């Protein structure tokens, strides 16, 4: 039995309501943190926990917090990234729906630690029912005095606001998210300066993913060392894995870091649909390199997946059976990145459109033999040449799909039809 941190309340009736959350020990850690711990002590526990950013980049959370400069005279902001738009990713939605108070408690502790009196949750515009639920939870927390002035009688003040996005994947990139809250087009900023120093309204800002923040109350409760002990070295805690595609039981499954990928697919998610064979897996959301079935005997933690040539990303596991046409599958992803490119950097803006034209041409039966190489080299030309990681995110699937399934792409281009359909 795996340890459950983030999903421990999921089965409880009305788990999203504050009374239910409090009956199960909720807000005790925020009280403990504010009353009994200094911000430095909490930071130390988070550093010890080896918690790494759950949005996809896997950056050590404690280290990120420690970059916030002290005594600049400016306010400090916390922005919670709930833009969750990476295809295949739906884990944060489950937290928003079933345990919004765990998130809010995490926000209180985090804000106190970094010295913020104002926090924002940036939620993707499509998550409308979830935004309503979250707003209700925030209002409950205000009523109980967990938000607002003088929280737990400590004199500490925190305001929490929801800011709704409006259908732009790029706003999940942290600096684009800040631009969006500032009422601008979501175009990523050049770094440095990093948001820790110059963030929202030019003030020091920490941006963390929903799942990352939801881990914080448990780290305060059980200590950083306990959390770190759950996963392999440098990969603390549990992770929500969102499994989708050709499996019998798509869903969110929580396991300790380092959980075997094949066990997740075959046991948790009930195996491949219709008893078919596994063909490939994208292990961390649509942006990360694809793995062939024979490469899937790996453990799910940041370092192990990296060693296998891909990335853990957001923990979104997209499963494809032997019946999947990889050319058509890739066309979906290219279409997405073309749609979502903000247009700021030429390689990404032009490259994604060019790749889409070529792959659509192949699918329409008008492919040329050299198309596969052209696709590959356009992707190589985008990789590493853009302000933000969206360029790399568009390039990595193309490069990895072609590297691993080149025969299928060439077959389609030459024979004007899919090899598997």
């Amino acid at each position: 039995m795996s340890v459950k941190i983030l999903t421990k309340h999921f089965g409880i009736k009305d788990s999203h309501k504050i009374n239910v959350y409090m009956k199960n020990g909720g807000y005790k850690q925020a009280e403990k943190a504010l009353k009994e711990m200094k911000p430095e002590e909490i930071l130390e526990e988070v550093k010890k926990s080896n918690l790494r950013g759950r949005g996809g980049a896997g950056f050590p959370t404690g280290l990120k917090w420690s970059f916030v400069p002290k005594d600049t005279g400016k306010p400090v902001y916390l922005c919670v990234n709930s833009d969750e738009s990476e295809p295949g990713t739906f884990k944060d939605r489950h937290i928003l729906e079933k345990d919004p108070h765990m998130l809010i408690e995490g926000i209180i502790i985090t804000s106190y630690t970094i010295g913020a009196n104002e926090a924002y949750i940036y939620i993707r515009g499509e998550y409308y029912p979830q935004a309503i639920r979250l707003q209700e939870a925030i209002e409950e927390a205000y009523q109980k005095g967990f938000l607002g002035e003088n929280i737990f009688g400590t004199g500490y003040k925190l305001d929490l606001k929801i800011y709704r996005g409006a259908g732009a994947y790029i706003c999940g990139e942290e600096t684009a998210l800040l631009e969006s809250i500032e009422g601008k087009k979501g175009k990523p900023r050049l770094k440095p300066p990093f948001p820790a120093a110059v963030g929202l309204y030019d003030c020091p800002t920490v941006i963390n993913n929903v799942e990352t923040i939801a881990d914080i109350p448990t780290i305060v409760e059980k200590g950083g060392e306990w959390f770190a002990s759950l996963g392999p070295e440098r990969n603390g805690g549990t992770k929500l894995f969102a499994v989708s595609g050709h499996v019998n039981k798509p869903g969110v499954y929580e396991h300790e870091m380092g959980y075997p990928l094949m066990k997740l697919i075959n046991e948790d998610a009930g195996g491949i649909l219709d008893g078919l064979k596994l063909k490939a897996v994208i292990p961390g959301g649509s942006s990360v390199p694809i793995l062939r079935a024979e490469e899937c005997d790996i453990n799910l933690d940041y370092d192990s997946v990296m060693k296998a040539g891909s990335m853990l990303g957001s923990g979104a596991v997209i499963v494809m059976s032997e019946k999947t046409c990889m050319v058509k599958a890739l066309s979906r992803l290219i279409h997405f990145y073309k749609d979502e490119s903000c247009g700021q950097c030429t390689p990404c803006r032009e490259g994604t459109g060019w790749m889409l034209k070529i792959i659509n041409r192949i699918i329409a039966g008008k492919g040329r033999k050299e198309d596969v190489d052209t696709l590959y080299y356009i992707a190589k030309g985008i990789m590493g040449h853009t302000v933000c990681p969206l360029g790399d995110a568009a390039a990595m699937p193309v490069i990895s799909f072609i590297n691993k399934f080149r025969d299928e792409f060439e077959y389609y281009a030459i024979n004007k039809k899919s090899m598997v359909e």
Partner: protein
Amino acid sequence: MSIEISENLRKKIEEIKNKFPTGKSPILPLLHAFQDELGYISLEVEEEIANIVGVSPVYVREVSTFYSMFNNQPVGKYHIQVCGNITCWLRGYDEIVEYIKKKLGIDIGETTSDGKFTLSRVECLGMCDHAPVMQINGDFYGDLTFEKIDEILDSLE
């Protein structure tokens, strides 16, 4: 030409201005509020928001057209948005969208002649555990089959 602003919308505008007092931050919440009330973001709406925030109308236009959720033209009473991304495609997007097209007699990007339905293809909605998925106005519908689509669309008045 100016637009008529209802009492409800006027109240919302004040709330937004108080909640997000800094710089241009009210723009996105205002765009949402106007679209909720009026269905789409017209040139007049852009001018109105520009006046409220103190920016040029073209600035509001730049922002509103950057974000795909803001409609710059009227849409049907029910805006059907079908996810065409990887997971929904793996689980039958092609068949699902063809079925809806045929049932409503419109293509993607079109509105039925009675103004009831607009059909769009959108990117991942974050509901991959229920693929194939569509969103109609604010509501999500997952695990779609032909029968389920009939049931949902036929129940909308």
